[in-house]
């Protein structure tokens, strides 16, 4: 009867376990031999009992050897080595399980966001273009944003939090930029409608334009007028300021992340450089002011007091 796949897998697993134990045992044996040999070289042929008391190197070598032997014995005799592969498997399984759970949760959130967005889009039949981004934003706020806002734990929580906030802000900026672009497209649409009206009027009056260039000129002048109206409208100003604010928010957060990552490298950060610039600016200003005052004072001095070798204007920046 042929062996089942599970049995084969178990047997291969056992074989792998044994192989791992054997490798670890040889590794420990090798290093035990090395430490013993080191001890012999350090303390002479007398070996363990022959070292000269009070000298550091033999003492250190001996304690190292003894420590390693103890570890070696406990590892090889207690069965730890045999159970180690199994424990590692278990740990890996746990990690994989956790990752899987996180990925699943993330997937569900993305799914929810997209579903919410498409549901809202389907409901919003009146002005689908205009509402698309706002709908996405609402769905994003209900779904994905929560993930970014979840409390971060552990050693790297500070950095995780910064990265999450930057990612969140990038999405908000993208939405605002999208809204801005959509608004900028509006005159293109309204111009077409106005063009149709004008063409109809011309047709009614039998005053057709006969040259394609004339149609272009008409279109561009209407477009210019529509843009002029849009660009001074409160809606445009609000959207323009909004996209700028979101961009600044995102820039601030992303720069913080970059600065965090630069901390481990021997590179000066922007903030540090700015402190240097400020200091340099203040010092330069003070220097120039003092130089001018000094030059003015020197001018007041009688020639004898200034001395024959005194330069006329030594401090003016050239």
């Amino acid at each position, binding site marked *: 009867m042929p062996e089942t796949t599970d049995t084969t897998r178990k047997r291969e697993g056992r074989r792998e376990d044994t192989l791992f134990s054997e490798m670890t045992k040889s590794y420990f044996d090798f290093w035990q031999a090395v430490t013993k040999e080191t001890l012999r070289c350090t303390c002479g042929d007398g070996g363990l009992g022959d070292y000269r008391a009070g000298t550091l190197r033999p003492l250190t070598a001996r304690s190292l050897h003894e420590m390693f032997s103890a570890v070696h014995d406990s590892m090889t005799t207690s069965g730890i080595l045999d159970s180690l592969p199994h424990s590692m498997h278990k740990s890996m399984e746990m990690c994989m399980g956790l990752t899987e759970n996180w990925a699943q949760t993330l997937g569900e959130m993305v799914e929810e966001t997209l579903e919410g967005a498409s549901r809202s889009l389907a409901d919003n039949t009146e002005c689908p273009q205009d509402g698309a981004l706002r709908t996405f934003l609402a769905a994003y706020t209900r779904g994905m944003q929560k993930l970014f806002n979840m409390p971060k734990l552990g050693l790297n929580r500070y950095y995780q939090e910064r990265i999450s906030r930057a990612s969140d802000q990038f999405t908000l900026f993208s939405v605002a930029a999208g809204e801005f672009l959509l608004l900028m497209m509006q005159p293109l649409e309204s111009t077409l409608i106005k063009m149709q009206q004008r063409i109809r009027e011309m047709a009614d009056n039998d005053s057709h334009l006969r040259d394609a*260039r004339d149609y272009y000129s008409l279109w561009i002048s209407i477009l210019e007028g529509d843009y*002029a109206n849009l660009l001074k409208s409160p809606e445009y100003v609000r959207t323009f300021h909004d996209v700028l*604010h979101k961009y600044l928010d995102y820039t601030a957060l992303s720069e913080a992340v970059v600065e965090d990552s630069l901390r481990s490298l021997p590179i000066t950060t922007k903030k540090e450089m*700015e402190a240097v*610039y400020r200091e340099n600016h203040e010092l330069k200003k003070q220097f*120039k002011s003092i130089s001018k005052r000094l030059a003015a004072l020197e001018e007041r001095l009688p020639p004898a007091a200034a001395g024959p070798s005194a330069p006329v204007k030594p401090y003016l920046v*050239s």
Partner: protein
Amino acid sequence: MSKPLFPVDELMESVLQYTRDMTARTSRARDILGENLETAIASTPYEVEYTEDRIKLKHYKPAGKPKCQHPLLIVYALINRETMLDLQPDRSVVNNLLANGIDLYIIDWGYPAPKDRFQGFDDHINGYMHNAVEYICNKHGIDQLNLMGVCMGGTMSLIYAALHPEKIKNLLLTVTPVDFATDTGLLHVWWGSRNFEVDRLVDLQGNVSGDFLNINFLLMNPARLMLDKYIGFLENVEKRDFVENFVRMEKWIFDSPDVPGEIFREFIRYCYQENRLIENRLEVGGQRVDLKNVTMPLLNMYGLFDHLVPPAACEKTAAAVGSTDTTDVPIKTGHIGIYVSSKSQQVFVPTICSWLMERDAVAEKTPPGTRRRPAGTPAKTRTRGTTGGRTAAKKEAPTPLKTAAKATVKTAAKNAASSPAGTETVTKTATETGTTATTETKPNVTSTTN
């Protein structure tokens, strides 16, 4: 039967013809575009006579003897570059000024680096500008010079004139915003709002990038500046002169240095958002900028179709300053057109030169009151807020300008000696014909200092 909306056949034929023309043009354009086009800008020779940090002081010498007693210093804006004044040889403000015998200096603000981000009004006005003025005065052995500002450079020049009136003989402002409380310009609407977070922008960006500013300028008229302009280029691509001029203009427009963060913050916050300058509430270097200290003659030129600095931002300047000799010259052109358009070339520089000549022409003998020091000797410090070095009030209104083509000149001579007590005479002169059109008398609400 309803009428057809289009003459379809004719229109289709027109489209086909347009396409055929365009194809032929572009194929001929390959030869032109592939050649060595003459697109250099700022080709008038100059000498750099003074440098400080990134700043250069360029000196353009007239061919003959200068016709004005005092040299003219031009202060350009910190946005874009001063090369616009010398864009092409036949439309060069610099060349025209030199041809009219003006000894000319221009401040080149250079390209601000990140280290310059903390430089504000004080550094530029009391620092760089003042040092340049001192240098020129010392070199020529004079106490004063003529100062001309362009756009934001005009605002800075006005501030300088208010803080150091003793240094300025005549002040010329061109397309200079002074009254920011207007919503006729898009920049005033976008940047003048408190919602425009200039503090955060500067804190985060440091220097404000030229690209950011360019995007703002392009958005002011996207249909023309992003689309129609390039359609026009394609339609004229086979004309060598057109292509060269177009490329020169493109070179200038997109040669946009970053603006030092601090001065941008101050300009937006204090001027656009709080309108402190015209209300005499602005402080620079710990000193209040009082426009009543601007007592020297003032020429104020601006474009009636300027969408960046609308006329409303320029019109109140003459009334705000303390000068008794102010001339407003609105020209039917736009913000850049005033310097580069062929029509404006016939008005702009001739008006400046004739106005300057009236006030500063080289006399056979040095007139009393004009003090000259030996060249190279430093000027003595004067107390600020005096009469600005003018020794006598101008007794008569300036003669009408005859050189300008389509400008309307409003000259206000606020002077108790020449007008009835407590009145202000406003002379409107149609310069196309060179004849005085109207003369009005209105109550003088400003105090006369001379």
